[in-house]
């Protein structure tokens, strides 16, 4: 258990006044860095007004339930999330099938209000609840040869109408380098707005990596595998020219079919303006993970 950040707030506080949110955002940023004192500028924090619960739960990409943005909200009810087992295997000391309730019970749940930037150039701000992936990795014990973490989404054709179509190769898979997975910003989320994660948002447990495009934050995770080789990832397999393994938010590297320089923050209505996309989605503290890498090549 990390004890890197202590949550003295109840879920009801998520909708509290802006000032309160700002203060908490500062704490979150400081906690995530593991140092005392706030580094995040208050000006930045002021932008982090979470989108409404309705916004977040009605505009989703979860292709297992259909490719329309409202398909997941319409069809994800069919997903059985209890009981839920996460298989943890590969280069770990304690592999096994972990019942989600046991697993979450051993973790420190905390609130993280993160920017969420979709590769399609829209964004939201989401108040997640979850725990640091690093804590889970410490619990199961990572073998020294492990270099990557692979993730897999549930594949339930009888509950997921979208998997009838070969839009992607099912099951959906994702991966992180071990140092990315261990970064304090990387969490496994089990709730949002103080409620259990809605099915359309990846219930009962999903990855959230806020400095990467949204599709890296894999939903409804059933398997976590530690490996020594770079694991395949769903969108990279579908179109390697458009979706790289890293997929860090980067305003200077365009998607081949659209610019990534700007984004639209959802919730602003018909006449909202685009805003500049920030490097690493504003989470500059992860830059050191990529020292010496050409991010235009390793996009």
């Amino acid at each position: 258990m990390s004890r890197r950040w202590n949550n003295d707030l109840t879920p009801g506080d998520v909708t509290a006044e802006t000032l309160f949110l700002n203060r908490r955002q500062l704490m979150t940023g400081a906690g995530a860095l593991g140092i005392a004192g706030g580094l995040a500028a208050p000006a930045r924090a002021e932008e982090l007004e979470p989108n409404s619960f309705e916004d977040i739960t009605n505009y989703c990409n979860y292709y297992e339930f259909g490719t329309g943005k409202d398909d997941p909200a319409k069809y994800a009810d069919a997903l059985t999330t209890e009981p839920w087992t996460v298989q943890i295997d590969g280069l770990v000391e304690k592999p096994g099938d972990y019942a989600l309730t046991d697993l979450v019970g051993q973790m420190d749940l905390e609130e993280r209000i993160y920017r969420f930037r979709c590769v399609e150039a829209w964004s939201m701000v989401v108040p997640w609840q979850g725990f640091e992936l690093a804590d889970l990795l410490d619990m199961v014990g990572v073998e020294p040869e492990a270099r990557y973490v692979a993730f897999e989404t549930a594949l339930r054709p009888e509950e997921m109408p979208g998997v009838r179509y070969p839009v992607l190769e099912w099951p959906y898979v994702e991966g992180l380098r071990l140092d990315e997975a261990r970064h304090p910003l990387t969490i496994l989320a089990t709730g949002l707005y103080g409620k259990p994660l809605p099915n359309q948002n990846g219930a009962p447990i999903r990855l959230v990596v806020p400095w990467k495009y949204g599709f890296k934050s894999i939903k409804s995770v059933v398997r976590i595998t530690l490996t020594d080789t770079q694991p395949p990832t769903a969108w990279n397999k579908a179109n390697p020219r458009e979706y790289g393994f890293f997929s860090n938010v980067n305003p200077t590297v365009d998607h081949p079919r659209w610019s990534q320089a700007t984004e639209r923050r959802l919730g602003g209505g018909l006449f909202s303006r685009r805003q500049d996309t920030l490097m690493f989605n504003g989470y500059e503290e992860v830059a050191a993970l990529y020292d010496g890498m050409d991010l235009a090549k390793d996009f």
Partner: protein
Amino acid sequence: MALLDLSALNPHLRRVPAWLVYGVLALPAPWLLYLGVTGGLGVEPIKALEHELGIWALWLLIAGLTVTPLRRHAGVNLLKFRRALGLMAFYYVALHLATWLLLDVQILSQIWADIVKRPYITVGMAGFLLMLPLVATSNSRAIRALGPRWRALHRLTYGVALLGALHFVMLRKGLQVEPLLYMCAVAGLLLLRLPGRRRVQRFA
């Protein structure tokens, strides 16, 4: 030779004035704008409006392509409404483009960069430009003046419909089912026009 005889509809269709078709087909656009302003188009109303206007354009382009096969194979005469279908398709294409320019991208330098650099936008813009000579000659005076060349010129609609469907296929992430259905509809309607196919029908 008709595969299905629906010619009984023709006397009723003759009584429908063309202006009514223009009027009815124009209505969805202001309705969509109203929904967009009042929150009826969801969390991302700009993309939703853009998409809906684009889909209306595709529907009308496809409807325009059905006029000839319907007459040939079902005996229904909708020729009187074809100009309305074509011009209203352009109305939706123009509004779709305006939504993209004024509400979606908004940044002038990025608009030009997108047209040049993004193939799906290049394809969409090409479709729009191909429509301009068709719109300019969609009147009785132009038909008389151009004579047989008018028919040749208006075969550009085939290209416009193909570009429109291709634009839709290309803009989606991954190969999705819905845009492919539109592409199949356009391709199917164009295949019905192949000369070989027509001869077979005639001799059957």
